[in-house]
């Protein structure tokens, strides 16, 4: 497969507009501006592109909803609040290939008739901010942003809005709250942002990677695009692999590449020839998999069949040297820290799970603690306001379900299995 999203990535000047244009950059924008906006939306629908942020919602459908809403103005927001632990797939685009994102956003905005766009950038990506702002300046200078883009009559303004470091602001409604200058907390849905979003207007929030797919769809057309990877959810996909592998990093592969291929071929297998113990396929919120399931295809339809999700495509690999109770505790500590405080089960419950996990991990676990954890977790699942609490409870439930012996060992022996 030809590399598209990470093209030029090895060129130190890849973030420059000259480099981008030398390799065909902004050509797709010219093509798109000659198309009718409705036709672009139809093309995206036909392509089967699904959102790369985690939920995998069909992008064309989202656009369709927004474009049917008669309210104006409309807003296009790029969700670059890449905060899911283990996820760093958007970062190379933001830092190395910003013009791909900008081109994708202008095309999308044209299709949606949005005249104002924002890149909501993760607070912890200060370098990306510098790069993006420079890229936006270059794009304005070259007439790809601003008034009357390339003489088409279409105008689009774009700016970077930097988050203040809250995981919850990756959730689209909390992101919009934050963008409006409020405290980032998820809003009640419905109404959905496509109808009532930023400042009450129709707003499309798409992930960096999703928007970066747009130039490719315009370039090769929906039919060709569908041939990449799994036809049910096609396209190139960025997998970011971390943990105990020889070559961790971001890999652009066709959607549906198997987990096994990613770990053992692209990443060179387990570090130091160790034994695989567990793998999280799509960021910390997605259920952990045991080694027997790594033949699964990494896409939106195959992973649910083995009880997990693609999420952001952040593969985290654990070998025999890793204590999974510790991993679980560390993950819950993250969720506790990031819980926004809006709803009771998440605010109070996640903190409690962390306390119980902490005592198990540090050798003070009591009999019945596992049942207690399961009870709290199951009373958080499905009862919180947004999926953050579900994610936290899911981590606990899945780790206990898949690796009960590790938890038991901790409680009985007051110490870690791995060190023994």
């Amino acid at each position: 497969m030809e590399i598209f999203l990470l093209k030029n990535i090895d060129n130190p000047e890849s973030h420059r507009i000259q480099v981008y244009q030398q390799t065909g950059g902004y050509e797709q924008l010219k093509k798109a501006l000659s198309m009718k906006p409705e036709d672009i939306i139809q093309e995206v629908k036909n392509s089967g592109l699904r959102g790369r942020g985690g939920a995998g919602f069909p992008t064309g459908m989202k656009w369709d909803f927004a474009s049917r809403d008669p309210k104006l103005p409309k807003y296009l927001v790029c969700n670059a609040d890449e905060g899911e632990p283990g996820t760093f797939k958007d970062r190379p685009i933001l830092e190395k290939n910003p013009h791909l994102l900008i081109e994708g956003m202008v095309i999308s905005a044209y299709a949606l008739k949005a005249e104002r766009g924002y890149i909501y950038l993760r607070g912890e990506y200060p370098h990306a901010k510098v790069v993006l702002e420079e890229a936006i300046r270059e794009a304005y200078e070259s007439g790809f942003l601003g008034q009357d883009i390339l003489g088409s009559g279409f105008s689009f303004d774009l700016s970077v809005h930097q988050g203040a470091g809250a995981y919850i602001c990756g959730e689209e409604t909390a992101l919009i709250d934050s963008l409006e200058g409020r405290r980032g907390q998820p809003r009640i849905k419905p109404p959905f942002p496509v109808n009532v979003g930023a400042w009450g207007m129709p707003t499309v929030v798409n992930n960096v990677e999703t928007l970066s797919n747009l130039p490719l769809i315009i370039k090769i057309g929906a039919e060709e695009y569908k041939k990449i990877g799994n036809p049910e959810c096609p396209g190139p996909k960025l997998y970011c692999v971390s943990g105990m592998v020889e070559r961790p990093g971001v890999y652009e592969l066709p959607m549906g590449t198997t987990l096994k291929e990613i770990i053992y071929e692209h990443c060179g297998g387990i570090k130091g020839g160790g034994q695989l113990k567990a793998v999280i396929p799509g960021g910390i919120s997605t259920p952990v998999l045991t080694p027997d399931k790594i033949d699964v295809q990494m896409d939106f339809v195959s992973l649910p069949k083995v009880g997990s999700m693609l999420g952001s495509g952040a593969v985290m690999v654990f070998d025999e040297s890793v204590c999974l109770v510790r991993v679980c505790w560390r993950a819950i500590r993250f969720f506790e820290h990031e819980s926004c405080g809006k709803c009771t089960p998440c605010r109070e419950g996640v903190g409690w799970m962390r306390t119980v996990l902490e005592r198990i991990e540090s050798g003070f676990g009591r009999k019945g603690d596992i049942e207690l954890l399961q009870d709290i977790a199951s009373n958080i699942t499905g009862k919180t306001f947004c999926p953050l609490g579900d994610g936290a409870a899911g981590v606990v439930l899945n780790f206990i379900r898949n690796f009960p012996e590790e938890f038991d060992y901790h409680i009985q022996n007051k110490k870690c299995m791995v060190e023994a």
Partner: protein
Amino acid sequence: MIELTIDGKRIEAEKGMTILEVAKANNIYIPHLCWDRRLKPYGGCRLCLVEVEGQRKLMAACSTPADNGMVIHTDTPNLQKARRTVLELLLVHHPLDCPVCDKAGECRLQDLAYKYGPSESRFYAERKHDPEATSALIERNPNRCILCGRCVRVCWEHQGVGAINFIGRGFKTKISPAFEETLDCEFCGQCVDACPVGALGAKPYKYRARAWFLESHDSICPYCSVGCTLTLDLREGRILRVRGVDGKGVNDGDLCGKGRFGFDFIYGDTRLKTPLVRKAGELVESTWEETLYYVANRLRDIKRQYGADSIGAIGSARAGIEDNYMLKKFMKEVIGSDNIDTSARLGYAWVLRALNDTYGINQNPIKLDSPIGKEVVLVLESDLTSTHPIFGLKFLEAKNEGTYLMVADPRKTKLARRSSKWIRIKPASGTVFLLGLINYAIREGAHLREEKEIEGIDGLIESVKPYTPEKVSELIGVDTEQFIEAASRFVNAETRLIALTVGAAENQKGYETVLAAANLLMLLGEGPDSLQVPSDYSNTLGAWLSGTRPTEGGKDLYEMLYNPGSLKALYVMGEDPLVTMPDGNTVKKTLEELEFLVVQDIRLSETAKLADVVLPAAAWSEKEGTFINSQGIPQPFPKVVSPQGDSVPDWQILRNLARVMEHDLGITELGKLREELSRIQTDRGQQRWRFSPVEVPSVAQTTTDYPIIMVTGNIMQHSGALSVMSKSLSHVLSDAFVQISPEDAERFGVKDGEFIKISSPLGEVFIKARVSDEIPEGMLFVPVHFAHARVNYLVSHSRLGNAHPTPVKIESTSTATPRR
């Protein structure tokens, strides 16, 4: 209509209602903590979870719209388990200090814990140890907070203030003013009523009583003319607090700071407890018997010597209709004089006059929810959320529901801040603004839209000719484009409303303003319902309707107060003209030239200090009475506490005085009085439209000597005389001040907080300056009700009822200190 099933019951509901609303309407109980009828659903507490058949997840009833065919279960073992867990989690950190918590006994968390909660918790945790935060009237105990956010949301969404918000994240979240500073807001106290637990409390009520010892009575607020229902909580014969209760009264649970905290004026230090008679130049305590005989003799003597027409009376916009009616009856039957009036003469009377001159009607009661659903609402130079706070809330609500709220005001009022469009006009240029709108409407051909021709159209067209958009925008001080945009919005709307206040305390609007507004609305085919001008005080309208005004050619307030020497004796009931009425010098001169001045009041007012006899009256809640609110609704209020000292209800004083003067007024008890009152016919009158062109609108003119315009008015915490007696309200604001713009402060060398000298041709006063960007350059704003400030001495009165803004000069009193 949709149909759904809740707990096996088939229920019909309106589309758009949430499950919780449907359940509430059908008396099905679903527990909740963060839901509030007035606020947008929040979905935070997660107690209202219900099972919806076919849905994998439990749904939050407060934020899930009810849908056709839904089958809902509100009480299953699964739900009980979920609710128990939520309560268990809430109680993990909630301090169990119920024995010292004022909320105990009426705490929602306590109630729910009894209903669902396990008596033991599986968790043990360190509690929170945040210090209690205190402020003028509201105490916050962050440790008890369950983060339902009702206070935050009621403050921002409903009150339009936003004084508090969440700070921090997750478990460490807490509610606080910005940067954890001391709470400094308008102190409406809505957050206190909204708090389901004991995290927020009214400071005056702290540690005063256990909830279950309180006895409650509903009453009517004595402050503004909205006429909110107050729920008074008493213990041992003393009012300890006031609450707004959902579903009660015209306010439906909402209250402002005056209503909630201002009740303690009845316990003020300056209350009169015995009659006072001036002997050898000093007011000395006396008995009722001696005093009444003295008054009777003096009145008789004056009547004999100068005739009945030399005696006048001033009634009260704060006393009940019974009291005012009795005063009128006393004057008519005992004295034989028609010289009687109230402060309505200076404000509301002009409103009625203007309505009569245009729509041909005698009354125009407002409707509280009139702004709701209108396409455009124009609020003209009126701080409605301060003067009529609960009426003001309706404007915010309308705005939230999509109304285009246009505010034309030089001051950055709350409504201006929350408006769709704020037009910062020059002070007192509201009338000109309206004339500009009329001119614009005629240009747009609005007068041709209506089929029927209204009398006087030619005169109107002629009269507004000079007020072209260019001219008007220059006069009011805004861009022509901005004016045209606003005018077009207003003129071309489907439905519209103009709201303003006209009152004795205000000097930037008057008769002509209402006239212009009515002309404009008639031109656009709108009836009097589109013009909402509330009466000032709790019983301004009641005093008017009960006939407390000259009805047979007697002297009105102007003639009585601004014509020294025309009266020999004056009987003042519940009014303090020396403080609340303009042109204090003339008023003082008139009062000093009287041979006999009787003041009947609840406290020793400034006017009372000049009196020959001072009679102590029972205050609101110490007597029964009836107020007629600005909607025209008569609302009785009960007696719940004993009168202070020897004070007696106003109407009884007059009855007794009549008896001493050997006149039987035929009224022995309240029932009899009310029966007579009920016979008074008041009707709105037939509408008969005609245009009444505004002759010469006064635009505030400054001169080289008096280069800045002073506007007077009421503020949020104080209005008139009662509020300054309230200790609680004085905690928020106890001193007179003048607001000055930063530009003028710079220009005149005024520093924030220093005393400045303000002088007008009528006199000079010294007041503390507050530099504020709420005020534009070239304007001062001064609240009038602090007696010691004597602001009213600077303001001229206007017999034409016109706007009469006061040009003044200001001087810093501190000599410039050298910079170090």
